[in-house]
């Protein structure tokens, strides 16, 4: 699975409240409506400006706070192709995989990537290439069953495809 897109750069500790505020998320689960407010405290017109395939690049603890799955869902709905961060909050990371939004943990890439650069990500190889600067970075490897879930499009799609949850195969 390869993702290529332009970079939106964010800092450390982007909370799920910042991704989608409690002001909106209790009123609807319509993603078209909710996604209009994605990231609005950080970039007021993010929803209008983000393009399909764009990549979010951020610092530490991306997605901290609430377990709200609306956060990865609105980003995916807007077409965000992947999130590359130095580290992720645990629940957010799992939620991304479950909704089929690729997440890449990479220590080096964020500091060496600027807003608007073009990144190419090879999930299986665990490589992040900054096509603008020509630099290549190694991502933290992801367990095989999570990679498969991303490739299948998330947990619901995977369940529909196989008629079972694939982690049952993990049981020793």
């Amino acid at each position, binding site marked *: 699975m390869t993702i290529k897109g332009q970079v939106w750069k964010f800092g450390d500790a982007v909370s799920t409240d910042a991704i989608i505020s409690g002001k909106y998320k209790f009123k609807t689960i319509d993603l078209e409506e909710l996604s209009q407010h994605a990231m609005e405290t950080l970039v007021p017109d993010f929803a209008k400006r983000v393009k399909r395939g764009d990549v979010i690049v951020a610092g530490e603890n991306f997605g901290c706070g609430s377990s709200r799955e*609306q956060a990865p869902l609105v980003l995916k709905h807007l077409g965000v192709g992947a999130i590359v961060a130095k580290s992720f909050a645990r629940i957010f990371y799992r939620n991304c995989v479950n909704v089929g939004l690729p997440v890449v943990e990479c220590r080096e890439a964020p500091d060496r990537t600027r807003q608007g650069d073009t990144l190419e990500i090879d999930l299986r190889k665990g490589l992040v290439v900054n096509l603008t600067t020509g630099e290549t970075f190694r991502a933290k490897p992801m367990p095989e069953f999570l990679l498969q879930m991303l490739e299948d499009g998330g947990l619901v799609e995977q369940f529909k495809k196989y008629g079972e949850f694939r982690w049952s195969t993990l*049981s020793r």
Partner: protein
Amino acid sequence: MGKTITEKILSRASGHDVSPGDIIVAPIDACVAHDGTAPLAIRAFREMGARKVWDPSRVALVIDHIAPSSSEGTSNLHIMMRQFAAEQGIRLFDVGEGICHQLMPEKGYVLPGRVIVGADSHTCTYGAFGAFSTGIGSTELAAVLVSGKLWFKVPETIRCLISGRLPQGVLPKDVILHLLGLIGADGATYKAIEFSGSTVAEMSVSGRMTLCNMVVEMGAKSGIVEPDEKVREFLRRRTEAEGEYLKSDPDAEYSDTIRVSAEGLEPLVACPSSVDNVRPVREVEGAKVDQVFLGSCTNGRLEDLLEAARILKGRRVKEGVRMLVIPASREVYLEALRMGLLQMFAEAGCSIYGPGCGPCPGGHLGVLGQGEICVSTSNRNFVGRMGSKEAQIYLASPLTAAASAVTGELTDPRRFLGERS
């Protein structure tokens, strides 16, 4: 090599002798979702083509985040939950029953040694009862509703050894804020935090819930306290099931041990706008306060109301300050009512609302405007959390909240308690 409580619970649940880093599949003993997360879980459940929940008796649905509803949209999501609960035979705790993390233990869903998940990040609260509990997303909750199982990575454990007596004016909230300052907002990511030592042994179940509640603010997966007689006593009236009262082995391996001397602690606040921006209250005294919130799954229990009452009794909330008091559950509300606490709060100038999450998630009941400052006993102070992105939230103990309500500015509660060290 010995095992921690968390490793023992996950070994028992998975049927394997587990170590940190192992990925396991475990049956789920109980799960919960609320009005912020259940609607997406219900949608995912339907999308999976599922018809029946694996075991309705192990599921609780709670309407607590926006309770009662403040908009037509929210009301429609509440209807969706009620219909699903009725269709599946799931118990739904409706408007006014309380916050899910207070209800789960009160209503007997939580037992020591059990594996519990919830579509809410503060599901880690039940570690106070010696259970392994952690927050998950809505889609995984749907997977649990379908299959009754979930995968987990066995976490390493950080041990927090807290010993000695808490000084006057210092509460469990100050203990966890102190640890947050030390460990940082992502210092415990993927880990379990085990609280032990004489301070924790002496602490009430309510105080232990405050500790475990906020471990997620350090990125942790779960918090846990060795279950004891206090837990047994709490559960006695609530469930006939026993649970497993596990202890960590003396030779259990911890990724880190943090020692805290309780005697050296003082009232603390997490300053805007990060949970680990922790400072002594005395250093930030004087900031003008617009709103004070006493409540939430962190500090909305009877003990918290009693602490606040120590300061508010016979005093008045400062003119120009709005103080909101929201008991965490109907049980807490009724007990506070019987004890005359609610009347006392009302006489002091507080506004009292029905059990629920209140202003904490920023959806209703006390949404902050531009430039407003709130002292809150809740657990998050991110930019925009309770409303305007220009508002500021200080997280504090019930004592600090009450003291600040009386003076109208951030105030060290020891000023009211006859001792100022």
